[in-house]
């Protein structure tokens, strides 16, 4: 498995380079928006990747509450963190696109606002993980992840209805997308998916290592102290036998 990591890294780098070339050179220029539309090739794949990662987080959180497997918990945590990174990219590139096209940086439109709320929920998830002890964090965070997932449809509908009552700038608008644009979009998404996988993998390895160090430190602080009733601690079976008598 570990040998696969550099291969994936090289592959991702190549794909990202190819994707940039496709997005900036090969893809046709949009008629009304001009070159700014090329932000689309970064903005949309990032959004899809973020949503996919948040979905992985939900599945892993539910699985953790059922099975109590610490590896699944690590997966939930990793996918939330990388998901927040991609969601940040979406929220930053969005206004940069909106400014020249709509003339405003931000509007409280359904999709924009829902994405912002999603980002807020997952940032609070990461904060919870950061501020709780490692023994309790998994179950608490999993509960919060499920609450967040239940919240998203309600957020979407409430904002959708709120916006239909109030005037707002006309944005987006349907219309068909050139098939060449679709191709470039999919190439970019594949590249970003590989990149996300790479980041998740690195973060997962870091998390496993962190847990090992934490365990070693806990053990060390137990064994390093010779004053206490060390026989029971060094050999838990002794303690068990005594209490069993």
């Amino acid at each position, binding site marked *: 498995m570990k040998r696969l990591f550099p291969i994936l890294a090289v592959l991702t780098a190549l794909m990202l380079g190819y994707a940039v070339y496709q997005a900036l050179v090969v893809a046709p220029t949009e008629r009304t928006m001009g070159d700014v539309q090329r932000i689309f090739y970064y903005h949309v794949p990032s959004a899809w990747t973020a949503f996919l990662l948040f979905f992985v987080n939900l599945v892993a959180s539910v699985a953790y*509450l059922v099975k109590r497997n610490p590896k699944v918990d690590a997966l939930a945590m990793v996918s939330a963190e990388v998901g927040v990174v991609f969601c940040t990219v979406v929220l930053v590139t969005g206004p940069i696109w909106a400014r020249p096209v709509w003339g405003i940086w931000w509007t409280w439109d359904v999709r924009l606002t829902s994405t912002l*709320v999603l980002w*807020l*929920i997952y*940032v*609070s998830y990461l*904060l*919870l993980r950061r*501020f*709780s*002890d490692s*023994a*309790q964090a*998994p*179950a*608490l965070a*999993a*509960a*919060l992840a*499920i*609450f*967040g997932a*239940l*919240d998203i449809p*309600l*957020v979407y*509908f*409430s*904002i959708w*209805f*709120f916006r239909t*009552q109030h005037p707002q700038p006309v944005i987006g608008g349907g219309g068909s997308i050139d098939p060449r644009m679709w191709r470039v979009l999919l190439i970019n998404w594949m590249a970003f998916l590989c990149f996300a996988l790479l980041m998740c993998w690195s973060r997962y390895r870091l998390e496993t290592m962190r847990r090992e160090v934490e365990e070693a430190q806990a053990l060390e602080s137990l064994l390093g102290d010779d004053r206490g009733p060390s026989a029971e601690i060094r050999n838990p079976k002794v303690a068990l036998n005594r209490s069993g008598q």
Partner: protein
Amino acid sequence: MHKQSFGGGDAMSLLSSTTRGTITRATLTKDIRLEWRSKDALNSMLFFSLLVVVIFSLSFDPLAEESRRIAGGLVWVAFLFAAVVALNQTWARELRNQVLDAYRVSPAPPNALFMAKALGNFFIVSLLEALMTPLFIIFYNLRALGPAWQLIPIGLLGTWALVVNGTFFAAISLRTRSRELMLPLLLFPISIPAVLGMVAGTTAILTGENSAHFWIVLLLTYDVVFTTACLALFEKVLEAE
């Protein structure tokens, strides 16, 4: 599991449902009696929302027309921040003499405890709202142009929406390093649709421009969804090490 192995069947489930009710009632009366004796939470909440009313009406100096548009947001933001005071001390009281640990090892159903706490908070926050609403009406010269009775379901459903999730997240934030700080950080993002529902519904009634039906249905859905989720997941939170 082991409960059913004793008798099983309807008699057993009837028994457990009555004990559940007894436990809920006992915890609820205990909490309300404690709060009634000290009135710590209620007094600080009242004073806090009074401050919000005064500061905002000073800084806006609203006319009757304008105040109809902003009052919904103001009232609910004041109540939201004030409710955090009550929510934060929900579980802190039980930590002092390891009451929560005692509860965890006892065979009492966790949901009964949760319902008692949520109902207690609901009672206190509703009392606060009942006391503060006349002040808001006086300071902002409010008069509803829409059907005013609809403010009652919005108030009740909205308060329950804040309180049920607030009680749950207070139990979560109890386990973190910076307890009191953590609760609003967890509660506010999840509460966004509920707060939007309360604010937009209240504004719709005050201005009389739109119907508030959608917001009442939204709040009802929110309440049903999250009450179920809280009851389903509270045990996991209570038992988390």
